[in-house]
């Protein structure tokens, strides 16, 4: 993954500027900075949820910012896994169906065994039929991670994945994220202001508000 000459201008203000940054396959990066420094925007740009004002974003050698929208949606679904701080599951569906949904929206099918193995890997083998309101924050975040991995992404983006969790849960989630992504050889980029995460990462990208 590589960005060049990236700039995002919103209401005449440069929210984000990043000259040249790349993450190799399987690499691990932490994006830090105060709130308003553009961490979330950068993740959304990488995932093609937001388009840059200037510059280019390549993911797996493809210009995600130059794709037609529908293709970008599918590309994101197949190659990028996204984990949020609190937005975890589709409300109306069970845990297992949330995983199925991830495959369905990009036109894939996964066997129930495959999905259950994934749930087991995040320690939720027995919650397959549970609904969102039956899960704790930590459990919901584990499901979100499992779902981000359903389509075997090459890049996993996480936006404050641990901020809403206590120390024990935060540690468990981080270990899970790192173990699962390295298992499938995916790069992991996490945006956070959570200092607890620093020890896990060898690379840091500091965003300083208006730099």
């Amino acid at each position, binding site marked *: 993954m590589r960005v060049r000459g990236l700039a995002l201008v919103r209401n005449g203000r440069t929210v984000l500027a990043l000259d040249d940054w790349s993450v190799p396959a399987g690499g691990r990066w932490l994006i830090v900075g105060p709130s308003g420094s553009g961490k*979330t925007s950068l993740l*959304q740009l990488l995932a093609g*949820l937001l388009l840059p004002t200037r510059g280019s974003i390549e993911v797996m050698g493809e210009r995600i910012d130059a794709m037609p929208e529908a293709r970008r949606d599918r590309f994101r679904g*197949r190659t990028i896994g996204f984990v949020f*701080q609190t937005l975890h599951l589709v409300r*109306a569906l069970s845990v297992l169906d949330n995983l*199925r*949904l*991830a495959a*369905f929206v990009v036109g894939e099918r996964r066997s129930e065994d495959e999905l259950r193995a994934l749930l087991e890997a995040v320690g939720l083998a027995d919650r397959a039929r549970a609904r969102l309101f039956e899960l704790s924050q930590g459990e919901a975040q584990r499901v979100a991670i499992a779902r981000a991995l359903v389509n075997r992404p090459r890049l996993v983006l996480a936006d404050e994945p641990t901020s809403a969790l206590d120390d024990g849960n935060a540690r468990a989630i981080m270990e899970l994220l790192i173990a699962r992504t390295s298992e499938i050889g995916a790069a992991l980029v996490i945006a956070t202001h959570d200092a607890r995460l620093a020890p896990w990462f060898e690379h840091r990208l500091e965003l300083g508000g208006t730099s």
Partner: protein
Amino acid sequence: MNLFRLAFAYLRDRVATTFLNLLLLVFGVTTITMVLLVAHQLRERVNREVAGIDLVVGAKGSPLQLILATVFQIDAPTGNIPLEEAEFIRRHPLVASAIPLAMGDSVSGFRIVGTEPALFSERGARMARGRLWQRPMEAVLGAQVARVTGLELGATFIGAHGLQGGLAHAEHPYTVVGVLEPTGTVLDRLVFTAIESVWLVHEHPRPSRAPSVHHREEHEDAGHEEHAEHEDHANDARQHGAHAERGPSPDAEITALLVRYRSPLAAVQLPRLVNERPRLMAASPAFEAARLLAILGFGLDTLRLFGLLVMAVAALSVFVALTNALEERRGDIAIMRVLGATRGLVLRELFLEALVLSAAGLVLGLALAHLLVELLARSFRQAFEAGLSGWVLAPEELWLVPAVLAVGVLAALLPAVRAYRLDLASTLARG
């Protein structure tokens, strides 16, 4: 996972709202369908009864009553007409055919009608078994009469005076010689016999022969519903024991004549000609039937309007439900988009929800309407006798299918467009 499962999951997720919307839809569809069903069958039935009869000639009175009495067999006749007057109409060159009816008695609530076999060919009725009558006091039963009374070929029965089980004419039993095939018309509920039978049953020696006109007035004064039942009391004892070949007495009476025109010209001339005769009245079945349907149509239109109103409320309710749901679902939609769902997929899912709901409302509403109409037909004798059935499809019902689905799509349109335009970045940033 597929789009249907997803749509069902969301409908199930807000089960109370879904149930309320479904209820409204079903209520609307049921109301409209019931009106359509009843109106359709009523119209069909009326047209079937009227088919082949251009004009009814009977005694003066209300034309609608005459038609109701002689064509639909649901009212008392207006009175009787002398046979010689009837003969005059029959011989008229503009008349292709004229079938006499003589009414008055009943068996188990079914009317006994004296007539001629030509009635069957005119109305397209065929014998299911047995034969036509060959002499007086032989009877042919309509299909429903045979079924309900259980009377079979060779059985005998006694006619009761009037319709509601009056005095029995025990001295003149009828013998069943034939049964008609079902026709889906009033013929199914009638007992047919030779005109002479009716004359024969009603002749009893009287101290003095009253003129027939006077006789009829006597009955009308009594406010009795059975004016016509005595149509032949005027026949005096001379007729006693008479057979068909001997012919009726000169002052024999019948209830009415069912006339078919020879040419369109007759429609212009014949009614006037008939009405000019002091004791005759002409009534057009088509005209009176149209009048009848117009009177009933007002009530049906009101009901239909009510049904449309309910449908509109249902559409509004679905709209409000989807709009509210959309607020709650911004996060869900954002997640789906992040997972790789295109705008189009989100749009399709929302429309599918509305479609599933309205299709369910449609199917349940249609089924309920048919069931209710059938129940109605079974619990009310009048409805049943009018030939009402729930197991009939009104052609207008087919229009309900696209109409109701369109209502669903329309209700989903605005919420779907808003979902389509959902700003992903800001929704996600809000968490």
